[in-house]
Each structure stands twice: as C-alpha cells, then as structure tokens.
C-alpha cells in the first residue's frame, strides 16, 4: 500500500460515487456536482499513476494535464449553471421531463 | 518528528469529520455554512502542518490560497442567504 495507490483507489471510488449521483439524481444542480466529482476522481486516478515512483518527484505531465482539465471542467460548469438558471426562468423546473423527443415541437 | 506531525494531521482530520456532521445535521443554513467554514480553517491548518512535514515551503502557498478562497466563499454564502441575494445581513437586521 502506498500513498499513490490510496489516492488512486479514492479516485476510483469517487468516479463510482459521482456516476451514481449523475444517474439517480434528477435535480440538475446535483448532476452538475456529480459531474465535477467524477472529473476530480479521474484526475486523482491519473495523479496517482504519476506518483507511483514515490511522492518525491511525481510525473509533471499528468499534473499539467490535470490543471488543464480542472480549468476545462470549470468552463463547462459555468455554462451548465447558466443554462440551468435560464431553464428555470423558462420552465420553472430544475429538472428535465421524461424522454420523448417528438414532443419537443 | 515527522510521525508526530502526521499524527497531528490525523487529529485535525478528526475536527474536520466532526464539522462534516454539523454540515449534515444543520439544522439551518447558517449552521451548515459555519461547519463548512470550520473545515476550511481545519484544511488551512492541515496544509501548514503538511508543508512542515514535507519541508516544502511552496506548500505554504496552498494554505494561503485556501485561506483566501475560503473567506471568499464565506462572503458568497452570506450574500446568497441575504434577503435579496445581493445584500448584507447587517442591513437586513
């Protein structure tokens, strides 16, 4: 058992937790939270992979792409939040109704 | 020496866990908010101890940023729970 392994396994669990939330929760703000949790779980997994040789000098390449990933996740979160607020203004609901595309007309 | 520092961190994590219970129980938003803020403070403390244990001065910067952003989040919390969403509880009172 090493530090890297602990956090990689933590990352795998977070992916599971986030996935569960993304599937089961209807409120869109919760699904946005779940999306961010899955994302950081994946980053921990990648970071754990980069630290396997000991925490002294972890691989900088995963670190750099994780920073990029964090910024990209924020960008998508910002759009999702703005879209959610607009959706609530338009429909009064923070959830999506059941799937039936042809009704959308 | 290092062992002691990590034990101290574990102790601090204990306070974080206790505050998590407060966030969970509430009962009102102010309680949850205070719980989260307490965890912010605990996080800053842990970051400082970790920096000492790792003998890495740059880790102190993480504590600095955590402290700064935690107070920022506190302001946002206060704003969000004020009467019109843009105010100051001191005005409301």
């Amino acid at each position: 058992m090493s530090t890297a392994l602990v956090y990689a396994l933590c990352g795998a669990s977070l992916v599971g937790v986030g996935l569960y939330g993304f599937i089961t929760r209807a409120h869109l703000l919760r699904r946005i939270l779940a999306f961010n949790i899955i994302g950081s779980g994946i980053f921990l997994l990648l970071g754990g992979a980069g630290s396997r040789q000991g925490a002294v000098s972890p691989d900088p390449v995963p670190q750099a792409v994780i920073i990029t990933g964090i910024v990209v996740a924020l960008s998508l979160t910002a759009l999702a939040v703005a879209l959610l607020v607009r959706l609530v203004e338009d429909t009064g609901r923070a959830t999506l109704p059941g799937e039936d595309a042809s009704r959308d007309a | 020496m290092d062992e002691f520092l990590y034990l101290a961190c574990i102790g601090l994590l204990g306070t974080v866990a206790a505050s998590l219970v407060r966030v969970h129980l509430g009962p009102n938003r102010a309680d949850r908010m205070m719980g989260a803020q307490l965890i912010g403070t605990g996080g800053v403390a842990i970051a400082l101890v970790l920096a000492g244990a790792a003998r890495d001065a740059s880790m102190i910067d993480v504590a600095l940023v955590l402290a700064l952003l935690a107070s920022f989040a506190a302001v946002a919390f206060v704003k969000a729970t004020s009467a019109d969403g843009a105010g100051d509880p001191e005005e409301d009172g």
Partner: protein
Amino acid sequence: MNPALLFDVALAALAVVAALSAVAGRDLFASVAFYIVYGILIALAWMRLGAVDVALAEAAIGAGLTGVLLIGAWSQLHRKGATETPPGPSSAARLLAAGASASVAVLVAVIFVGLPADGAGLAPAVRENVAESGVSNPVTAVLLNFRAYDTLMETIVLAVALAAVWSLTRDELWGGIPGLRQHARDGGVLATFGRLLPPLGLLVGVYLVWAGSSMPGGAFQAATVLAAVWLLLVMSGAMDEPAIGSTAIRLTIVAGPALFLAYGTGGAFLGTFLGFPADVAGMLIVAIEYVLTVSIAATLALLVAGVPRRQE
C-alpha cells in the same frame, strides 16, 4: 501502518464521504456546502501526492471558484423556488444504479492495481529537457512549453465558454451588466472585508504568477485568485461588474489567447508551431503568462458573474 499512510487513508475516506453527502443528501444547500468541503479535502490530497501545482489549482478553482459559482446558482434557484429535490427513482432503480456505478469503480480499481508498479511515465523526459524550456518548474515547463498546444486550446476554451454563457442573454438585456447590483452596509463587516482582502489577494495573485516559473504556481492559479479579488470587490459593493457590451472588457478577454496564438503562428511560419527558441524561452513564457493571467482573471470573473441581468 505508519502515521502518514494512516492520514492518507483517513483523508481519502473523508473525501468519499463528503462526495457521497454532496450527491445523495436531501438538502440542496447542504450539497453545495459538502461540495466545497470536498474540494478542500481534494486539495490536501494533491499535496500528499507531491503535486503542489495541482493542489493550488484545486484550492483556487475546484473548491474556490466552482464553489462560489454553485452557491450563486443555488441562490438564484432558491429565489425562483426551484431548489426542491424531486422524488428520486424507485429503490430498485437506485440499487441498479448503485450496482452499475460500483462495478465501474471496481473495474477501474482492478485495472489500476494490475498495472506495472514502476509506472512508465514522462518524468525522465521532462527532467532531461526542462533546462531548455526556459523555466525551472517542470509543471510550468509542460504547460507552457512541452504541451503548450493544450494550454493554448484551454485558454480558448475559457473564452468560448464566456461567449457561450453570454449567448444565453435575453435580447433586451444584450450588452448589459451581469449579476445583481450588490450592496453592503457602510462600515459593516462585509464592506470592511471588501476593503481589506483585495490588496492581500492582489499580492498573492501577483506572487503566484511570479513564482510559477521556478516554484509551484502559475497563470491559472494566479488568475483565479485575481478573479476572486474582483468578485469580492463586486460583492462588497465597492465596484460594479462591467457591461458585457464594453469593447475594453472584450479586448481584455481575448488579448491573452490572441497573443499566445499569434506567437504560436509566428513560430509556425518560421519553422516550428509554438516553438520557443531556448535562449529566449524564459522571457517569452513570462511575458505570455502575465498577459494570460490578466485575460484569464477577467474571463473567470465574468464566467462566475454569468448572464447579464440588467441594462446600464
């Protein structure tokens, strides 16, 4: 088990608990609070992994800015009565979802454990070339030199995200000011906060971008701190958000990515797309970083501020 590893296990467990509480709890406000707590714990995890640059980014962006964005969203939904959590799916469906999610987690964990322990990676390649990159912090070297193409795209992602958020503006408010006009009691705690914190934050921001070339830090982390300072000034009522119709503000947003792109294209015509000649790389990277920091700070602050809600 040694205390350090014990700490790791405890921290990892708490992070998972916070995440579960964020997605599974009943109260939406509590979920947002749990998410912010979760971000702080993850930042600590990155410190333990020796990834201080990522820890800074997580503390500033993951916990800080994303948290504030979510609090703002909650606030708006709350005002429109849309924070009620609708009844979830049946317990059978939940069980099925839990099973599926757990299988994915276990599959990922098993694959990871089965990988070779020595871990082929690019750390040696970075070490060999970092001297020619112009900076001594290996993560900054990857971000702004070895994988500069990713970073260029990322800065453009931010600008496009802002355009996307703005595209949700109602026509009658196009060009207007995002967010509500904030106010605070004169001399109150909030107003004092708004006076005291910004200079400190400004200092931290400038320090982070300066430190980035040799120590952990850099444009994105610094820009986030600066964006927080900006938003703090707005929230304390000391200044207002700019109108999105303002040409100056739009030029500020595109200046960083545009300079980066122009530099990269110039290099392409001279032989190497985004090529930094080793002797001037340090200077150029610093110059690009400073302009980027300003652009990214403005973009992040406006992304959190959201869609225009009033006219000038």
